[in-house]
């Protein structure tokens, strides 16, 4: 209690009101805000515990955590650390109270029993505190100068090891930072186009590394052994060994000499019999000696295992990367997504570093806000739509969807017949002597299917984009629909390609005694398929180069330097993220599909992605203007991953089918002579010890499968029940929170009213007293 108050009390006549306020003052003796409170009762809410600095709460938690973690094991340490990381969001008061309060709220370190490890942890945690560096340093010194308990024995060893780990970690991080690929490019793009577009480039980078990993695997386990151990190809065949005879005839058949450039881009000629294609790998078990021990390397087995492993790795990587995105989508679909908050609080990309990009960003945010508000109005409007309008829109959508399907089917038919036509033409020509001017024609036929497919991929999406405007969707839905349709177009063209390839390599009446399954199918159909995919890949890449550096570049130049409405219309381009993502995904799909038939295709794809990064960067930075639309990093990332996953399935399923069903060609490859590729695995399985076989067979009996299935269903049910209960709980708690908020508001109002009355009463009492005193002095005077 302050001395001033005491004196006052002696002079004053004692009313209960004064006692009340004194009591109040006593319970908050040094509260500087009390003065303010008396003047302005509205200020009361700043005194609420929840509004007090979050530091107070945080420090207490921090201390308890430390107390606990002192006793517990290292594992507990890390757990409590991660927990306290969430809690210790200390707030730096910028208001009147300033520095001293702040320090008093930080943990009082002298009280704690510390040892070296916890002290170190303490220091590591300092970086999370939002206080200036000088104070952090002070605190660090304080902690370091404390008398620490020395750790003994095993504890000490563990602690040393931990410290070493963290040291190594920073070292590794430092050196990784130095060799990080495309750091400058990414930064540049981010500064100019924002995080959404950078997400695309990170995606390309991710694919590049994925393909590097895959090709490394394949090279190490498949190509390298083949090179090192596969010395010469001699064919000393016995009459009964059909595979050997066929291989002999395949490898010794003369190749027509051709232009070497053409051979390289078509994958024919000398390239056909290199490690690039399936046909080159042998079906032998290679043997070598290490010291005096003879070792074996089973190429066919290695081939299939490596391939399956690569597909598996790809899938795991996609799922891992997509998991985050899916999570978010779930949040979004559950309606717990903060659209507007996201726009306002997460809208600005803090990485933007130049005036022009900033202006675009301002504009984009403005547009997005407007669009969001308008969408809201639209939904309201939709509810008010008349039945006639609804029918009209429905009819429009129906017609457009039918049109889209017709276009897709049309594309399929065109591709099928082109493929048919071109193969027939090539065969006709190959039987005759080729003259120089017909060479070009032949080349044209070779590339005709690829050309048709690629040009369709360019033209048809434009049609889709035009058609969608008749459907009257909201902009986001519009983008999504166009994307889905375009994905279908690309995949459909691939499916048709598969079908026509399949038609070429299978026959209804397989004749077992010739090397080729049908009379007009290629000798080594796997290599043939690999070549087709190789051609498509090369052509697709070529188109990217041409479109980017010639067509689009010229367009952008026209738009920039000729101030003409018409040229601006033709020339101006924005970086359409979904289109470019599709380009990249398409390349990857081709790579996955062709990988089985041309193992080194993944290496080629890695190289392509390396250059694609620069091609796309050129397209983005030089050719395009920043898009007026906001691309969200998270949303675009999850979109890429979903599309990639779908494409993965489209690439992998045909491969799985061919492994399981199709007969490998007899004249080439690691599986010649087998009935199917999979039968090799079956043989291998049969050679395993009997008990393993029995176990596996048991796993496939109904006695195991049915109970297993039931347990799974029960688990599923259990989790879905928990989920729905939780969701219900969220709703209940939310309502409760709102009620609490109302209660608080109500109580605060009451309290401030009370204080106001109190003040008024006191003022009145003082007035009365003054009047009394006046009267007293008056009466004394008289």
């Amino acid at each position: 209690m302050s001395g001033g108050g005491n004196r006052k009390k002696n002079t004053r006549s004692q009313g209960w009101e004064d006692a009340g306020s004194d009591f109040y003052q006593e319970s908050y003796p040094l509260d500087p805000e009390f003065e303010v409170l008396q003047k302005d009762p509205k200020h009361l809410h700043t005194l609420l515990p929840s509004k007090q600095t979050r530091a107070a709460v945080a420090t207490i938690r921090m201390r308890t955590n430390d107390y606990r973690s002192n006793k517990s094991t290292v594992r507990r340490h890390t757990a409590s650390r991660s927990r306290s990381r969430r809690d210790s969001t200390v707030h730096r008061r910028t208001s009147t109270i300033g520095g001293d309060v702040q320090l008093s709220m930080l943990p009082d370190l002298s009280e704690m029993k510390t040892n070296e490890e916890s002290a170190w942890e303490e220091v590591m945690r300092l970086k999370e505190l939002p206080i200036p560096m000088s104070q952090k340093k002070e605190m660090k010194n304080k902690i370091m100068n404390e008398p620490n308990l020395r750790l003994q024995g095993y504890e000490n060893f563990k602690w040393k090891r931990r410290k070493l780990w963290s040291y190594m970690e920073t070292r590794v991080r430092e050196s990784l930072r130095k060799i990080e690929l495309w750091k400058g490019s990414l930064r540049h793009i981010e500064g100019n186009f924002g995080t959404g577009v950078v997400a695309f480039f990170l995606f390309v980078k991710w694919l590049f590394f994925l393909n590097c990993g895959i090709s490394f695997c394949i090279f190490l386990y498949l190509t390298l052994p083949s090179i090192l151990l596969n010395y010469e190809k001699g064919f000393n065949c016995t009459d009964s060994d059909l595979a050997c005879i066929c291989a002999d005839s395949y490898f010794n058949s003369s190749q027509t000499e051709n232009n070497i450039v053409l051979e390289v881009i078509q994958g024919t000629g000398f390239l056909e019999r290199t490690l690039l294609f399936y046909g080159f790998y042998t079906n032998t078990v290679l043997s070598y000696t290490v010291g005096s021990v003879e070792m074996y390397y089973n190429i066919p087995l290695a081939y299939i295992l490596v391939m399956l492993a690569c597909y598996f790795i790809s899938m795991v990587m996609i799922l891992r990367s997509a998991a985050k995105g899916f999570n978010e989508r779930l949040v979004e679909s559950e309606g717990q997504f903060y659209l507007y908050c996201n726009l306002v609080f997460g809208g600005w990309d803090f990485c933007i570093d130049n005036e022009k990009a900033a202006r675009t960003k301002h504009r984009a945010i403005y547009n997005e806000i407007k669009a969001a508000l308008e969408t809201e109005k639209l939904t309201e409007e939709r509810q008010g739509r008349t039945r006639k309008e609804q029918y009209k829109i429905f009819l429009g959508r129906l017609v457009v969807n039918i049109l889209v399907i017709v276009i897709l089917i049309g594309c399929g038919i065109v591709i099928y017949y082109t493929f048919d036509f071109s193969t027939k033409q090539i065969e006709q020509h190959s039987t005759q002597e080729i003259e120089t001017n017909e060479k070009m024609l032949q080349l044209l036929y070779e590339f005709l299917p690829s050309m048709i497919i690629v040009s369709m991929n360019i033209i048809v999406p434009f049609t889709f984009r035009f058609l969608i405007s008749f459907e009257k969707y909201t902009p986001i839905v519009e983008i999504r629909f166009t994307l889905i349709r375009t994905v279908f177009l690309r995949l459909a063209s691939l499916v048709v390609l598969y079908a026509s390839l399949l038609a070429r390599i299978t026959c209804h009446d397989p004749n077992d005694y010739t090397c080729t399954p049908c009379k007009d199918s290629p000798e080594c159909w796997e290599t043939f398929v690999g070549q087709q995919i190789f051609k498509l890949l090369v052509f697709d890449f070529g188109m990217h180069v041409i479109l980017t550096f010639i067509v689009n570049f010229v367009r952008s130049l026209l738009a920039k330097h000729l101030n003409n409405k018409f040229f601006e219309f033709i020339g101006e381009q924005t970086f359409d993220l979904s289109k470019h993502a599709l380009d990249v995904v398409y390349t990857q799909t081709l790579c996955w599909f062709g990988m089985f038939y041309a193992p080194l295709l993944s290496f080629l794809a890695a190289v392509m992605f390396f250059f694609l990064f620069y091609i796309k960067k050129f397209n983005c930075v030089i050719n395009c203007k920043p898009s007026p639309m906001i691309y969200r990093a998270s949303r675009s990332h999850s979109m890429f991953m979903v599309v990639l996953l779908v494409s993965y399935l489209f690439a992998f399923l045909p491969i799985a089918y061919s492994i399981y069903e199709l007969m490998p060609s007899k004249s080439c490859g690691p599986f010649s002579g087998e009935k199917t590729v999979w039968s090799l695995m079956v043989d291998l399985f049969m050679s395993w010890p009997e008990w393993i076989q029995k176990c596996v067979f048991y796993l496939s009996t109904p006695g195991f499968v049915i109970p297993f299935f039931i347990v799974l269903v029960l688990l599923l049910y259990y989790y879905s029940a928990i989920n729905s209960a939780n969701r219900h709980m969220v709703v209940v708690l939310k309502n409760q929170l709102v009620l609490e908020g109302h209660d608080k508001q109500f109580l605060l109002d009451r309290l401030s009213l009370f204080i106001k009355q109190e003040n008024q009463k006191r003022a009145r009492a003082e007035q009365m007293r003054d009047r009394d005193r006046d009267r007293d002095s008056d009466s004394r005077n008289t």
Partner: protein
Amino acid sequence: MGQGKSQFTEDELQDYQDLTYFTKKEVLYAHQKFKSLAPEKVGHNKNAKLPMSKLLQFPELSVNPFGERICKVFSSSQDGDCTFEDFLDMMSVFCENAPKPVKAEHAFRIFDFDGDDMLGISDLKQIINRLTNDNKLNDSEMSMLIQNILAEADLDDDNALSFAEFEHIIDRSPDFLSSFRIRL
């Protein structure tokens, strides 16, 4: 690099490494950046205090609608002038390795223009105006937007966002981490 190194002792660097999300090399790199803002001042005194106007020449801050606010929040003298240590604090919060709660904490303070520890309607208005810059929303749009934000996030109905509510938003915002970041 050699010149930059000579300005710090090994102990200082160790301190900085322990107290920020940076490694020693990155601290030195940050100092280079800081120095390039005002070479003549920082050359003499590595921890010189730069006025806010100088600091706002840092490219990311210069175009950032909240640039001034950021300087003020991180300045130890609270007037927007920053020493190198303040600058390092700032970059540490904005770097990739800083965890979400730390970022959320500072974001809240940056957005809290009037310093009352709540994001009230006036704060929100200010944020939106700075975001859209020249293209101003009209009054009805603005009030509608603010209503929507409050409807989404203001759980206790007091027409302002407390830190807890803000943190909740950030938890649910997938893009916050990637957007609230400045690459050194």
